[in-house]
């Protein structure tokens, strides 16, 4: 089935790339969404089944796949308005949609893959397709962002590859040549400790380019800034998740060995530094898209700290991942409307947005509450669990500076966002006040509603899925 899906998605994207007709394009997009959902439902019905021996539908892949399939619908529909509203030429339009479909396909396959090398291959494909999306505008800024993204990501993925080779050296003791995750977890206690440590360092560093942590976070920031907003919504949610999946899968192997606590130390250091860097930049930023990109880095840092702290932190990390994806993508999609209204991303050029677009303004207030984890938000619940895991794990010296940094981030983000909402710009700029598409607004509200719903009243099936996903760490 997965092969059918990959072949189908690739052929649709090739057709999209070749297609020059508007209506055919619309049909192709609809067919792609249908295919994506058919595959998602199929995977949901066939849980814990191995497909084509390289893919396995375990709990984590189902969670991330569901998040991807949900977010891809508004992303594709928003792009629709974005592309067709601006009279782009058919060629760039075809390239844009084709690349986005390949990106979604590669993410799906990377989530589901049960082999460390297959994950790597599909993550590499996401780099290629994402850079085509960043390049969409073909201006000096987007060329620079594309170049940086493709270069940093390729070097990082080369590091991941070196990590895989080191892992295979670590396997030398056990005469095992199978790199399936389940098999690796079984032989984990017998792995050579030195090579395993080296391998963890390289793989973790490599995937930080995707998840957006120190040291390789820089490329993702420029990418989210320069890519069209629907793409930025994907980059800041599902593309980060693929980095998390890559690290998490390897972490499950490490968790069964004696280097577990050493790996935790590495993760906590990188994650804490990420939050620190995000806080520092938040105060200096004048560009709303970059501010949101740094906010993603902060959230990834928080959830990785939860993962390293252990206990209930495992559960909270995955909950946080899911909720952050919905909240951040909804916010990015709304920023797209804002950009259309003011034709600027600079906070200083934007003002009184509430007056021009009340529905959008209300959405921004709610998404601000959601993203900064103020109580009714679902992210509050997951962050609370993470703080609890830090307390019980004896990481008080991390928790206190973390809380201070998070408070500073709330202040920095709040001052930016409320300035854009309510403070008029000095000289009244000509704002484009054409009414926004109601369907798009509704989709954004729905995404945001999911954040509140899943956080406050998580369905039993969802909780069970997360518990199943983290159970591999503790068995």
């Amino acid at each position, binding site marked *: 089935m997965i092969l059918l899906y990959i072949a189908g998605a690739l052929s649709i994207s090739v057709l999209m790339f070749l297609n020059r007709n508007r209506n055919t394009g619309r049909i192709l997009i609809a067919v792609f969404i249908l295919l994506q959902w058919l595959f998602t439902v199929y995977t949901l019905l066939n849980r814990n089944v191995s497909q084509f021996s390289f893919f396995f539908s375990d709990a984590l892949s189902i969670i991330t796949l569901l998040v991807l399939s949900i977010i891809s619908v508004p992303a594709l529909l928003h792009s629709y308005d974005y592309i067709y509203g601006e009279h782009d030429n058919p060629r760039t339009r075809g390239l844009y949609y084709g690349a986005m479909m390949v990106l979604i396909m590669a993410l799906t396959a990377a989530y589901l893959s049960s082999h460390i*090398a297959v994950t*790597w*291959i599909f993550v*590499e494909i996401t780099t*290629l397709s994402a*850079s*085509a999306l960043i*390049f969409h505008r073909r201006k*000096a*800024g987007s*060329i*620079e*962002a*594309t*170049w*940086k993204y*493709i*270069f940093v990501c*390729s*070097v990082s*993925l*080369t590091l991941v*590859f*070196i990590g*895989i*080779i080191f892992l*295979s*050296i670590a396997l*030398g*003791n056990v005469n095992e*040549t199978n*790199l399936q995750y389940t098999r690796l977890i079984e032989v984990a206690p017998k792995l*050579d400790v*030195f*090579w395993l440590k080296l391998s963890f360092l390289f793989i973790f560093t490599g995937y930080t380019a995707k998840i957006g942590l120190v040291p390789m976070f820089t490329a993702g*920031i*420029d990418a989210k*800034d*320069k890519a069209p907003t629907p793409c930025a919504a994907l980059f800041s949610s599902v593309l980060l998740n693929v980095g998390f999946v890559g690290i998490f899968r390897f972490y499950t192997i490490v968790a069964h060995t004696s280097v577990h606590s050493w790996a935790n130390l590495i993760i906590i250091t990188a994650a804490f530094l990420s939050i620190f860097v995000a806080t520092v*930049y938040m105060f*200096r*930023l004048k560009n709303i898209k*970059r501010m949101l990109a740094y906010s993603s880095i902060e959230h990834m840092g928080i959830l990785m700290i939860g993962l390293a702290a252990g206990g209930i932190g495992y559960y909270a990390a995955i909950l946080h991942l899911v909720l952050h994806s919905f909240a951040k993508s909804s916010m990015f999609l709304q920023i797209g409307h804002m950009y259309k209204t003011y034709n600027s991303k600079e906070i200083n050029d934007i003002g009184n947005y509430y007056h021009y677009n009340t529905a959008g303004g209300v959405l921004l207030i709610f998404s601000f509450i959601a993203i900064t984890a103020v109580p009714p938000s679902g992210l509050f619940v997951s962050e609370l669990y993470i703080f609890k895991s830090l307390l019980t794990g004896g990481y008080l010296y991390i928790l206190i500076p973390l809380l201070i940094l998070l408070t500073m981030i709330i202040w920095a983000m709040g001052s930016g966002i409320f300035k854009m909402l309510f403070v008029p710009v000095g000289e009244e700029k000509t704002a484009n006040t054409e009414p926004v598409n109601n369907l798009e607004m509704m989709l954004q509200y729905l995404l945001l509603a999911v954040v509140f719903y899943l956080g406050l009243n998580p369905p039993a099936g969802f909780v069970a899925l997360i518990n199943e996903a983290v159970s591999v760490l503790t068995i």
Partner: protein
Amino acid sequence: MTKIILILFIITLLYFAIANRLMTYVKILALQGILLFGIAFIELIEINIVNLVLILLETVVVKAIAIPVFLRYIIRKNEITREAEPFLPNSVSLIIVTVIIVATFIISNAVNSFHIPKIYFVSALSALFCGLYFIISRRKIITHVICYVIIENGVFILSFAMGNEMPLLVNLGVLLDVFVSVFLLGIFINKVGDVASDIDVSQLSSLKD
């Protein structure tokens, strides 16, 4: 025999440090491709014949011919000045590269593993670190691509060391190569080259916080 080839490979890194012209860099890449072909031919004799032929073809066709020709084409077409314009003088580069190689020797002696021959480890790690150093110290964007290919060649050598047990890894290295080719093709087709390959890195610094 492999040892001689690997030592030659390390010498190419030293030569890269003192070379001045872009075309020399491209020729070094072609030479490295041929050296990799030699190692693959000698080392991977145990694996499946079809796979071996594929890998050999890949090293010759892609690494030794296609990528260098392509780079040369980009350099000619965009009329990139032939000097490499490093930030540091060549003598300093030479010293740094030597230090890197000596350091990897010392590291590999400390590692003490039976699973991987030391010389592979040394040449791969030196290629990785030298490549990173060259990226930092060169001004032009096209040299960054060249240095990335050097890093990748180093990784390829490392995968050869495990190649007989896990041919899969070598195939992944091949995939990495295909990735680079696509990436070069992208530069070429989308004419990023017109804008991006002639200018130096200092002009790519408008995106920052």
